[in-house]
């Protein structure tokens, strides 16, 4: 009887927790949207007059003012914001001030490329991180010790340098892919390597630290005393508990995958979200930037929400009433 009561109480607690996290998520997205608007509005100029002011164009101030008025950019800030916000809540992302194309179409054009790149980069990062962690725990000390330095090395080499070297070797010298065919399998793979290397560093660090921690636990000592080999101990006992915190790190690196994609996309000539952001920032194309920031906020919030919602299910020791986020402490 009491176990049933406990279970339903636990379910209610989980439900309350999920609703609270969902409300937070919506608030974060809306605040990000408003914040972007305010930040961009503080900057000098607007996309329309910036383009018209190019000295090649020979437009008079009166002509520029007429066009700016057409786009409503001469309206008070709060009018522009309330219009943008009321459109956004009903899902209308508006029209790009730079290209005059619908923002939703622009996003749809670039999103698949970025998702492929980010997904592939995450896979590269995970494979690399687990390979390094395996090497650190299983190779002889003379080899394992220098291997421990890899993550900090990966973090310190600039992303664009890795990208330029990969292009130079694998495209221009070996001809494995063409820079003009940036979405091909090989081109995507090498772009993912360039983007995945720095991301793998953080995952590897956390994984190695947790493996070291778990290896010192009593159960590991017991397992070793029963004569278990290094590799068997690693796969059967240490890997699972050490991998759990990786979920949290992966959630945190989503931001890095999105942010880092700008440089990688630029160098590899890919047409992704990063490039769209770059073009839109250069021209202060507010509707596009707001949509991208809202999208990034949604992705970030959803990934973290999933991590937070999944965690109590994976690890019953996590307390649901603890706020803020009830993540297991990452021992890095």
């Amino acid at each position, binding site marked *: 009887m009491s176990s049933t009561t406990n279970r339903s109480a636990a379910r209610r607690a989980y439900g309350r927790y999920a609703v609270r996290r969902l409300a937070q998520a919506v608030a974060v997205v809306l605040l990000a949207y408003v914040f972007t608007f305010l930040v961009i509005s503080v*900057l000098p100029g607007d996309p329309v007059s910036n383009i018209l002011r190019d000295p090649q164009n020979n437009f008079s101030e009166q002509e520029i003012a007429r066009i700016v008025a057409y786009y409503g950019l001469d309206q008070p800030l709060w009018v522009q914001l309330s219009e943008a916000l009321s459109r956004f809540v009903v899902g209308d992302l508006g029209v790009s001030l730079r290209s005059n194309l619908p923002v939703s179409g622009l996003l749809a054009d670039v999103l698949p490329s970025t998702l492929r790149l980010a997904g592939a980069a995450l896979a590269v990062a995970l494979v690399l991180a687990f390979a390094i962690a395996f090497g650190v725990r299983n190779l002889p000390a003379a080899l394992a010790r220098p291997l421990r330095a890899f993550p900090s090395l990966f973090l310190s080499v600039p992303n664009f340098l890795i990208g330029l070297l990969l292009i130079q070797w694998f495209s221009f*010298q070996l001809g494995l892919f063409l820079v003009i065919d940036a979405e091909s399998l090989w081109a995507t793979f090498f772009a993912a390597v360039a983007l995945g290397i720095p991301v793998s560093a953080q995952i590897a660090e956390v994984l190695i630290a947790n493996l070291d921690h778990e290896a010192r636990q009593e159960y590991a000592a017991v397992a070793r005393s029963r004569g278990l080999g290094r590799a068997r101990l690693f796969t059967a006992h240490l890997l699972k508990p050490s991998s759990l915190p990786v979920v949290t790190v992966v959630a945190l690196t989503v931001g890095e995958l999105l942010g880092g994609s700008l440089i990688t996309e630029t160098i590899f000539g890919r047409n992704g979200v990063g490039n769209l952001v770059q073009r839109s920032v250069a021209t202060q194309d507010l509707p596009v930037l707001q949509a991208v920031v809202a999208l990034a906020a949604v992705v970030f919030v959803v990934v973290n929400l999933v991590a937070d919602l999944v965690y109590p299910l994976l690890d019953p020791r996590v307390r649901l009433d603890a706020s803020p986020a009830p993540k297991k402490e990452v021992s890095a």
Partner: protein
Amino acid sequence: MTIPRSPRRPRAGRATTAAAGLLATLMVAAGCSAGGAQSQAGGEPQEGGDLVFLIDSLGPTWIPNNSSISSFQGHIWGHLTDKLVYVDENGAVSPWVAESWDQNEDATQFTLHLKDGVTFSDGTPVDAEAVVANLDIWARGDVERGINPIGLFPKTYVGSEALDDLTVQVDFDAPTLGFIPTLGYHGSILIAPETLASSAEEQADLANDIGSGPFVVESWTEGDEVVLKKREDYDWAPAALDHDGPAYLDTLTYKVVAEPSVRTSAVQSGQAQVAYNPSPQELEFYGEQGFTVAAPRYLGFVNGYAINTQVAPFDDVRVRQALQVGIDRDEILSTVYTDDWLPAESFIQSNVPGATDHSDALVHDADAAAALLDEAGWVEGSDGVRTKDGQRLAFTLHPNPYLATSQAVDELVAQQLAELGFDVDIQAYDVITYGERVSFANPSIPTYEVTRSFIDAGTVAGVLTDADNGENWFNVGQSDPTLTGLAQDVATATTTEERDPALDELQGYVLDQAYFVPLTQIAQRLYLQSPDVQGVTYNGVAYANYYTAWLAE
């Protein structure tokens, strides 16, 4: 969508040039030298082939009026559309869709006679009605639909009408000698009336923008690439291009690669045929390897400083003149640029019809500059900077963000002037901040760096003073009767024979008063090209035309 693939592989061989710096090392690491073995003026044109052009950006929007002035989109428009007249790199005007034209005596009324049989790619004729629709939208835009006028189109436009299917009459309310040449400007592109009547959102989709050019859009992706394919029934190229019928090339692909070293290395490894805007420092290296470097000049103003005459120390003509002769232009050419750049001879480019050689006024003479500053009362202090009444001889340069080499030139100029006792500060802004803070006649802006193309020298008159809403570059207003009078003579001339002497006198006067301090002739559009690419032509605004080009194997 298929992307045309280049079957070429990196050539054998090894670059032996030792070059410093990471990028140079990367280029050498590519190890593929063309060896300069290719013949440059080679053989019979060959049919077929796919040309890939790597570009830094595709510019903001595809609405024809709003985008055709962009340095990037001009390349694509030049292949999708035709113009009424053709203007070559020497500013010579010749027939194109307009077979001939007449004008009345005071150059206020023009009659255009159109070529018969020209069609847009949707099959509709390029007739008088279509030309009138284009002229109206170039001149006035349509603000109700968010469509700009063309900035350079004569403001004196009254209207135009179709006299018959192939004859258009155009009226102006004042002499407009520049009208016919302006029809060859890269903004004056002929677009199907149906496109012009559609909404801005529809025109923003390049696939809806119908022209009559030698290529049509096969596919495009915003901000990424545009693939053009040749139009088989094209048969109305300007006679000046010396080529009839359809283009030789099957397709033209404009692909955005933002990183300059990747663009140039891709051409070097044979993955693309043309890289736009390589950095001038790389050009010599590639030239030695047999690649073609093209730095065509455009018609327009030279690169130089328009001086704000109301701001100290430039309110004194002697200080301006000291600046005019105190700058060593040869050193700029030899330090920052390569042999592809030419010294300025006036404040307009030497290929503009009516430009005359005033290099005598621009000879470097440090002694004369020092004497002028002494005479003006500027005395050299212990720190090498001249002062007068407690004021230092100081001013700020704002490098032009539209010109990549501008900052390097300004740094050199600052050094040169420091030797004369100037204290020159450099404040660089990005494009947006520059547009907001730097403008002609702004009291805090002592010099404005000019880069601007135009087709007809008549444009010059509109910038010198504030008469007729002029841009008033030197903040002189109409206080200098000589300047106002000469500008008026140029603006109201009804024939070039009448205008040319006035234009010559005007150039001499502006340089003598040091209202404008020229630096070098401008080559803003640079092309690094595979030696396989033959027969490229460049028009008066320095755009490469691949209608005449072919690929040699």
